[in-house]
């Protein structure tokens, strides 16, 4: 009994202290807000926002609600994070492998890249890409077309828009191809385990993913055309591109700086992972007759990934949270739209900041859960 109390005591005191501190702050905030005539409540979320946002993935204008504005900001944050994570991973893996290359030039180039980009503060890099690099781009009227259809200007990158007919048939053909590949892969594995036969699954997969969508074009009635951006004059010296898709320079600068910065850390994770696999593993694998490709795929990578994934998860989380620096260059992310404009227009500081914090927390936890699931999947399965 005595022993238990000794065990419980400190924990109980901690819980009481935490509750008291939180209660004290909540009470104080309430009293002070009352004294200053500030109302607390989330009712404003359904009110008309009456401000516009530059760039939105869903239909939005000032006649929509503050909640809709929140969604616009959230989706823009997710957009830049997802693109950033994909690009950072690709660059990171390439650079990480390149750092281990026996080729002096490739090796040194990768090393300098990592040291350069990871040692400059991210905010500075964002400013550099936005205010220095992209500012050097031509005005719309002076822009040279890239491949005749892309226009990179100071007002953004204009690309042709796809105009689909019967898009759903095309989509189903891709889904069908993916399902077929999964089934074939499963069968191939079974075949190898039971009869020792190997099927060129990779070649079949490529064939399927090309042929099925192609068929949808030929006999499924799917057609695709492009809407190419056209130069439009606004005033004597002021032009813009009309039609097509436009990617604002803010999005480009932010994605570029986030991925180049985060890629350096991912590259180091990848290098550490590969170097962490014992040399003997590679030699042993080679000695039992595996081809170099198989050595990498079946022996090195599965072990390296276990080392790579946990620290890379941290980098993904960092990238997502760092995307809030977007506010500095007018990219309408969650912080700029919701914790910025919406907060100012409503004055609901506590409500909006709490929602924003909770949102980032949820985003980060989702990424963590996903990566932990993947990590568990590739971890050593003790039998």
């Amino acid at each position, binding site marked *: 009994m005595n022993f238990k109390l000794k065990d419980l005591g400190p924990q109980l005191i901690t819980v009481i202290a935490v509750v008291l501190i939180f209660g004290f702050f909540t009470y*104080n905030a309430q009293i002070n807000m009352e004294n200053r005539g500030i109302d607390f409540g989330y009712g404003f979320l359904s009110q008309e926002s009456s401000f516009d946002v530059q760039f939105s993935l869903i239909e939005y204008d000032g006649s929509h609600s503050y909640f809709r504005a929140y969604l616009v900001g959230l989706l823009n944050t997710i957009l830049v994070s997802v693109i950033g994570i994909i690009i950072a991973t690709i660059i990171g893996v390439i650079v990480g492998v390149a750092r281990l290359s026996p080729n002096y030039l490739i090796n040194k180039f990768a090393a300098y890249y990592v040291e350069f980009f990871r040692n400059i503060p991210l905010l500075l890099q964002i400013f550099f890409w936005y205010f220095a690099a992209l500012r050097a781009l031509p005005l719309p009227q002076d822009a040279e077309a890239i491949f005749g259809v892309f226009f990179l200007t100071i007002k953004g990158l204009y690309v042709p828009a796809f105009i689909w007919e019967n898009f759903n048939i095309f989509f189903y053909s891709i889904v069908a191809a993916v399902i077929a590949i999964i089934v074939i892969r499963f069968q191939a594995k079974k075949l190898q385990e039971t009869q020792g036969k190997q099927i060129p699954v990779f070649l079949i997969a490529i064939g399927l993913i090309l042929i099925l969508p192609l068929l949808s074009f030929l006999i499924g009635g799917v057609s695709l055309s492009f809407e190419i951006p056209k130069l439009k004059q606004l005033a004597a010296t002021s032009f813009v591109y009309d039609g097509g898709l436009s990617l604002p320079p803010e999005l480009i600068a932010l994605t570029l700086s986030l991925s180049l910065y985060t890629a350096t850390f991912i590259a180091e994770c990848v290098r550490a992972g590969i170097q962490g696999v014992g040399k003997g593993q590679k030699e042993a694998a080679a000695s039992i007759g595996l081809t170099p490709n198989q050595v990498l795929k079946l022996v090195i990578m599965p072990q390296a990934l276990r080392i790579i994934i946990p620290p890379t998860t941290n980098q993904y989380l960092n990238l997502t949270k760092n995307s809030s620096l977007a506010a500095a260059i007018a990219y309408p992310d969650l912080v700029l739209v919701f914790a910025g404009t919406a907060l100012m227009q409503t004055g609901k500081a506590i409500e909006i900041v709490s929602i924003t914090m909770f949102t980032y927390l949820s985003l980060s936890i989702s990424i963590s859960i996903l990566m932990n699931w993947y990590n568990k999947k590739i971890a050593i399965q003790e039998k």
Partner: protein
Amino acid sequence: MFKYLKQLTSLVAMVAVLFTFTTETMAAKKSKTLKNTQKKGFVRCGVSQGLPGFSNADAAGNWTGVDVDVCRAVAAAVLGDANKVKFTPLSAKERFTALTSGEIDILSRNTTWTLSRDADIGLTFVGVNFYDGQGFMVRKSSGITSVNQFKNGISACTNIGTTTELNMRDFFNSKGISYEPVAFEKADEVVAAYDSGRCDTYTTDKSGLAAQRTKMSNPDEHIVLPETISKEPLGPVVRQGDSVWEDIVRWSLNAMIEAEEYGITSANADSMKTSENPAIKRLVGAEGELGAAFGLDNEWSLRIIKQVGNYGESYKRNIADTGILPDRGPNQLWTKGGILYVPPAR
């Protein structure tokens, strides 16, 4: 990162204030802000991050401008020295939080007086020190001379957290023009973006346009369009709930305007003590007991006039002589065709 640091400090300040304010909330009869200010020995004033003519710091860190002068006037009235002011530069987004959290005691930062701000978020506007309206700046070479020449697809640079964002939408909507709003947190970033060609037009209060134009790489290449699309009465703001402090700030501003009306300047203020006009004598502290109502002495307004000058002197020094807006427009006394009209100090 430093702007986030600032938000952090305001948060810390908020927490600290929450602590201190609970013990003596209603009971204090005298103004708590006044008492704290006198104890500290300086007025805590929130200003812009650099808007020539309104609040702008020179290389040596000396703040000047008509908004700055309001805070200096309060310091002269309350502490006897117009230089005893601590200026805190704030972005449009941070300003109200800084005031309600108690980081500053006066917000004098070209802030538009609107109903929702006055009634909703724990603030009180005490007056108007500049009557303004929102306008547009374009490049001269564009050939645009009126907002009626704007076309679909125009991109407009502006600040976030201001009435500008709302007015802009109202304006473009009423004209049926589709536009691309590009909103930055700091005015310098807006100017840099517009200057480089990212945007076709830059929109904010006209005084702001005139002031920021002086910061462009080549000011002569830009013009401010004649149309005004909104009313923007700019003025100092205080926290709600301290009516004595509110009165001090209001009447410090009013004293400057009334001093101009009666021709009292920083140069002649002392000699006006022997004036025949009782209104003048009251303003220079030679008659009446006006200061006692705020818990100040009788020469509070004399010190404002002597150390800061009247409104006209402040305007001339900061806005006219710097070439920002040589014409006073509506910011002229009511006796001279403007709309500056303040209640009598008596």
